[in-house]
């Protein structure tokens, strides 16, 4: 059992990193990775949403959808749960961490359409993970997302914008940096326990 958990952890963090390999959650990844604090803040918010969403969607899917054979409702039920959670997180962050709320801006509500969150809930169902496994995979996937976004923020903060050609400043250089990071992450493919 432990071996399986570790192999999922390694997969979610490195070999099948949600951002760098599976291309999930790129919008906030590019939008929020200017400063490390906001990146960590975004990572925490996404981790909270993905962990809770993985559990909640598994319960709903197992006890409600699969029992009545309503698989076609999966998408709408899962995305409703995620949207509810995200709006809850948005209110919470707006109240207790206003600085983070301003820094995240439009990207906080966009967690709802963050492909990573919906992706992980659908993957849990497809891989047939149990309740605990779904929760673990959701958390590990979010940690993989946070790892990628914090690494990216570190690089972009360190990247001296002035040494870049004027038209490549901002998003273009961020994209190229992300591309090089993706090459690095490709080095992990095929590595498994």
């Amino acid at each position: 059992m432990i071996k399986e958990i570790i192999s999922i952890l390694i997969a979610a963090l490195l070999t099948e990193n949600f951002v760098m390999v599976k291309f999930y959650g790129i919008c906030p990844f590019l939008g929020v990775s200017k400063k490390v604090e906001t990146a960590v803040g975004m990572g925490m918010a996404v981790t909270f949403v993905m962990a809770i969403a993985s559990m909640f969607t598994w319960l709903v899917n197992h006890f409600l959808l699969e029992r009545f054979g309503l698989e076609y409702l999966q998408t709408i039920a899962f995305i409703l749960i995620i949207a509810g959670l995200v709006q809850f997180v948005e209110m919470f962050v707006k109240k207790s961490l206003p600085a983070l709320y301003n820094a995240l801006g439009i990207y906080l509500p966009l967690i709802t359409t963050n492909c990573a969150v919906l992706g992980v809930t659908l993957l849990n169902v497809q891989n047939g993970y149990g309740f605990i496994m779904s929760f673990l995979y959701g958390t590990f996937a979010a940690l993989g997302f946070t790892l990628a976004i914090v690494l990216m923020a570190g690089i972009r903060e360190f990247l001296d914008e002035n040494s870049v050609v004027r038209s490549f400043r901002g998003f273009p250089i961020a994209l190229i940096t992300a591309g090089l990071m993706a090459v690095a992450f490709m080095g992990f493919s095929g590595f498994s326990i």
Partner: protein
Amino acid sequence: MKEIIIPVLIVGGLGLLFGLLLAFASYIFAVKQDDRVEKISKVLPGANCGACGYAGCAAYAAAVVENGAPVNACSVGKAAVAEKVADIMGVKAEAAAERVAHVKCRGTCENTTAKYDYVGVQDCTALSKLAGGQKHCRNACLGFGTCTTVCAFDAISVHDGVASVNEELCTGCGACMGVCPHHVIELIPKSAKVRVNCSNIEKGQSANRHCKASCIGCRMCEKVCESDAIHVSDNVASIDYSKCTFCGKCSEKCPKKVISIKDNLSSDE
């Protein structure tokens, strides 16, 4: 018929559950935020340049509402924004003192000569570390354009080894002032016709030797000024624009032509 009722109940039930949860949460987490802050930040240009002295537009908006920051501090938005902010706050906005950046140096290639040939990073800060820069005058504008890289409005550019400001584009945000290693750039009112174009602090003859267009601290301007607006401190003249009446006498009297009148300033560029 059953397989229509059940999905409606399930998804509808979920919707109801979340509707209640979110509505309930919105009361617990209700943030008592003054809606004026919201309105003001919408009106501000959102460049977050910090010229008003606050961390960004959101911070400035909060400061205006909570601790009465001046309504016209936004030098990027100038009078237009000041008006809008004023009527949100229900206050009259006096004309904002529009400010522009001004380079206090005329150390062009023919006015001064280079001490050494510099081969390295094209950056003023790097150059200033090497014996105060390439030019003989140690307070001169280094001419490598670090200020041009931080200017978000492309208002400053380097000509003939000295930076110069396009006052139509300049919004007075002060980014260039902050980054210049020799602090050659200062923010002055845009309407200021009389300007000092030197920041050399050396005594007369060495200043003279180092640059043809340098201020030798002879204090002629100080003697001739009736409104006591111009003073020489550590061998360079500086104008207190709150007193200056722009009469231009100091500019006539200055033997080295360091003090210029704005309308002839652009002509001799």
